[in-house]
């Protein structure tokens, strides 16, 4: 899956759930809401959404939890995800 998601490549990965996935990524990543109305992003837009920018470790406008979910939905590995230290001292990727 490229670091760009559109309905076509999401359908390859998620089948008939692609539209719902596109909407969720758009919402989590602050792209805007998806729909056919004014002021919305069409899920049919071939240009898609650039998820690389929102997954950038330097992007603090998107929560770590949201980045994890976006990466999961887009089928990509987060670049240089920050390492969080839990209370037990074990390290995990956030």
């Amino acid at each position, binding site marked *: 899956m490229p670091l760009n998601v559109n309905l076509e490549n999401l359908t390859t990965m998620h089948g008939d759930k692609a539209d719902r996935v596109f909407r969720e990524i758009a919402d989590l990543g602050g792209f805007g809401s998806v729909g056919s109305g004014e002021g919305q992003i069409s899920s049919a*837009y071939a240009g*898609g959404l*650039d998820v690389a*920018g*929102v997954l950038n470790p330097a992007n603090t*406008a998107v929560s770590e939890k949201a980045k994890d979910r976006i990466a999961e939905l887009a089928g990509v590995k987060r670049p240089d995800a920050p390492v969080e230290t839990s209370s037990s001292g074990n390290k995990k990727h956030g």
Partner: protein
Amino acid sequence: MATSATAKNWRSTAQSYNAGNFWGGLAIPGAAARLRIHEADGTPDATANASAFHYGGTKGGAKLMIKSGLTKVYIDEFRGPVGSTVDTLEMGISAELVATTDIVLMTRLMPGVATYATGALSGDDAAYTEMRIGTKAITYESVALIFPLIEDATEWGVFNIYSALNDTGVEWAVSRKELGFTPISFVGYEITSRAATDTLGCYWKSKQTT
């Protein structure tokens, strides 16, 4: 008390006199993100922008526009304005495109109107590429004008509108004495559910300066 001089700044490297490239079909950037470009040549990153479309040459470059309509607020007790409100906001890119026989390009300039098709006529071998004019759903696209900076030719200025369409149609001359071109004007439409400070687009450069 003695005075001292304040340094002037002519900002000569911040001037703009390089040719840019006009792109459409770009990926929409998310919150606090920007259009991903290939730093080596200032083109949209092909991975992040797999559907990028280069609109080709222009007759005389492009004009970039951001305008807000401010309405002054007056109160009875004072004669001068005491504040302003932003009533309107516009962002646009205009140019004169010369590739008037590129039917794909011309179709993109007619959102909600033109339908592209190609093929061969049945019964003979006459291939065709066409745009039929009627009505259809209006589509928007993310567009950008990308240009090299004077201050550093390896860095780029980017004028990106997240959701735009050409609202002037197409009109061109076919002439032996004149280069055919069509004026275009891409205007931005707000994506209203984005952050209030980031609904229309972003003008930025790939260089951090103060």
